[in-house]
């Protein structure tokens, strides 16, 4: 194990995979010259050259489209979306091409493309630079969706995404980049796509979550431990294919579930999880599945407003506490 920031963990993943496989390349806007907005590309052009680490024009549709074309013809492109919000500018390429080609073409091809998409709410970036859009893509057959919660996930999931033969969306929360944590030393360490990770055990409630909200859930669990409430935290890591077995297992063990994320609550991934629990684990549940997510509003600019409209540690702790105390 060694300790690195989330940003460095992604860099390690890129470096190792680019060394390992000459068909891996990276393209995006403003990634080469200053190392990326979050330092997440530092040193890559120096090591791999500007042929394999490409600054591009502002042409998101072309980047993803060309990513698909390169993936169809023997390369493993990693396309940086700059901000996840701009996936909207290449939605057709992602949804109608990347996701569908293998199925439509009768399995003649694979589309081993990775899309890196810095997302989430931070620093009053405003409505057009703060979204968490993963739910759309869980609903889109043909795509894989992964969301790292810490440096270990960041490295292991990025490597897994690059090695995957499926088009994979990798959502990395902007506020996580400077966060430090341990990462295994093994060059072949990958986090398997499709498997959730229990972050802590507990008998009273499980908080099912992913991405930056894992940290908030762990904080909430620590708060409640002081109150004598034992809270388990499940880090989903992958949103598609979703680890339904691990979720069902949590229901079987704690019978009470909170699902939390920073994305909009309505229609969020939490809805899929809660719906699954209500359908497949009905008899295991001793109380309602409580969903927490951002309010159904574009993220406001003013810091006071921004901080009011999505769930952080206190809201998560409150839900878990009330569920544990049978107040819900």
């Amino acid at each position, binding site marked *: 194990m060694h300790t690195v920031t989330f940003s460095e963990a992604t860099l390690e993943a890129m470096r190792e995979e680019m060394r390992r496989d000459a068909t891996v*390349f990276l393209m995006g806007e403003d990634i080469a010259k200053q190392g990326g907005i979050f330092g997440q590309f530092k040193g890559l052009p120096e090591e791999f050259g500007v042929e394999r680490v490409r600054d591009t024009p502002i*042409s998101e549709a072309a980047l993803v489209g060309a990513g698909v*074309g390169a993936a169809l013809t023997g*390369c493993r492109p990693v396309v940086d979306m700059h901000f996840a919000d701009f996936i909207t500018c290449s939605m057709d390429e992602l949804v109608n*091409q990347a996701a569908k080609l293998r199925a439509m073409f009768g399995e003649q091809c694979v589309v081993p493309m990775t899309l890196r998409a810095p997302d989430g709410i931070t620093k009053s970036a405003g409505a057009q630079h703060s979204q968490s859009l993963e739910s759309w893509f869980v609903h889109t057959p043909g795509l894989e969706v992964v969301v790292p919660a810490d440096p270990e996930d960041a490295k292991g999931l990025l490597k897994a995404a690059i090695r995957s033969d499926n088009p994979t969306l990798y959502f990395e929360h902007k506020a996580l980049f400077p966060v430090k944590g341990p990462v295994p030393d093994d060059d072949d360490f990958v986090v398997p*796509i499709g498997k959730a990770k229990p972050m802590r055990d507990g008998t009273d409630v499980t908080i099912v979550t992913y991405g930056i909200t894992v940290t908030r859930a762990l904080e909430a669990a620590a708060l409640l431990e002081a109150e004598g409430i034992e809270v388990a935290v499940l880090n989903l890591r992958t949103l598609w294919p979703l680890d339904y077995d691990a979720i069902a297992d949590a229901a079987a063990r704690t019978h009470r579930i909170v699902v939390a994320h920073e994305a909009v609550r309505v229609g969020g991934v939490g809805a899929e999880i809660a719906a699954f629990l209500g359908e497949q684990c009905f008899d295991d549940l001793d109380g309602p599945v409580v969903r927490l997510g951002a309010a159904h509003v574009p993220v406001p600019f003013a810091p006071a407003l921004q901080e009011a409209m999505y769930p952080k540690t206190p809201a998560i702790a409150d839900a878990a506490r009330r569920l544990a105390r049978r107040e819900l």
Partner: protein
Amino acid sequence: MATTLSSSAGPAGAERGLGLLRTMVRIRVLEEGIEKHFLAGDIPGFAHLSIGQEAVAAGTCANLRRDDAIASTHRGHGHTLAKGTTMRAMVAELFARTTGVCKGKGGSMHIADFSVGMLGANGVVAGGFGLVAGAALSAVLRKTDQVAVCFFGDGATNRGPFHENLNLCAIWNLPAIFVLENNRYASTTSTAETMKITDVARRADGYGMPSAIVDGFDAFAVFDALETAVARARSGGGPTFVECKTYRARGHYIGDPERYRRKTEVEDVMSTSDPIVRMQAVLSDELSPQQFEHLWAEARDEFADAVAFARNSPSPEQSEAFFGVYAGDRDPGDPVHRIAARERDALLPFAPSVGTGSQGSGH
């Protein structure tokens, strides 16, 4: 872009012409057959014919190697056949059979054949630009001398991906060739309504990309323009834009009432410009009427054989609907397989049995 010596000259030219003619005749026979079988209910979905435009597919693909890539459109039968897909694999696909090149999962609008570098027809207008830019980039990164060709219509040139990908190919000097089939219409809408310019090739100037405008009814002219463009791309000279002036002699889709143009317009164009008639005229000194007839007969036999093949092929098992999406989904150990199997178990018991006949109609 001028070619000094036309590829139509001399005995080599005659042989080339024969090859181009054969391809055009095969496309024409295939598409007339598709039309018939679509109307008879054998082919589900949508089908768009390229009758009148065969010279573009033939003249272009005659310049390509098997390992070069093409991306096509909703009107892709000609490109696919010209690139080397067999009629059997195509017709079986259109008939939605397991022996189809996409196992019956694609159909006319999504036919693809990776064994010959055909990256797919595309139900999204302008869907091919990105695929070609990427295939060309991939050729550079993998250090091959492959080239990639994008076929597209005039209508597609008004979409954003046209702009973004042509610019990308230009600045990165990629081995991509953009072959515009300007057939004067996008569905019901004429180019005069959707652009102020008459030569779309002018748009290439805005990317600093060289361009050529050719008579798209003349397979030799297309061949020559592509010969130059392919040579440039293969030798690292970057992309080329080729505008082929052509015409769609059928409706936008099979069944189109065509209220947006007069019948006589079609007759006028085709009476003077039919690319097959024109090529036969050019070759009439070298080939006898019997030889021409032989070409047609061969193509008709090939088509009849393909239809028989398709008819004798099975429709896919309904459980196939749930697999073949993710790379791992046929592997029982893969998480995505388990999810797919559960979906199959939930829905398959209620699947209505569906005959092999068509549910299709025009769109």
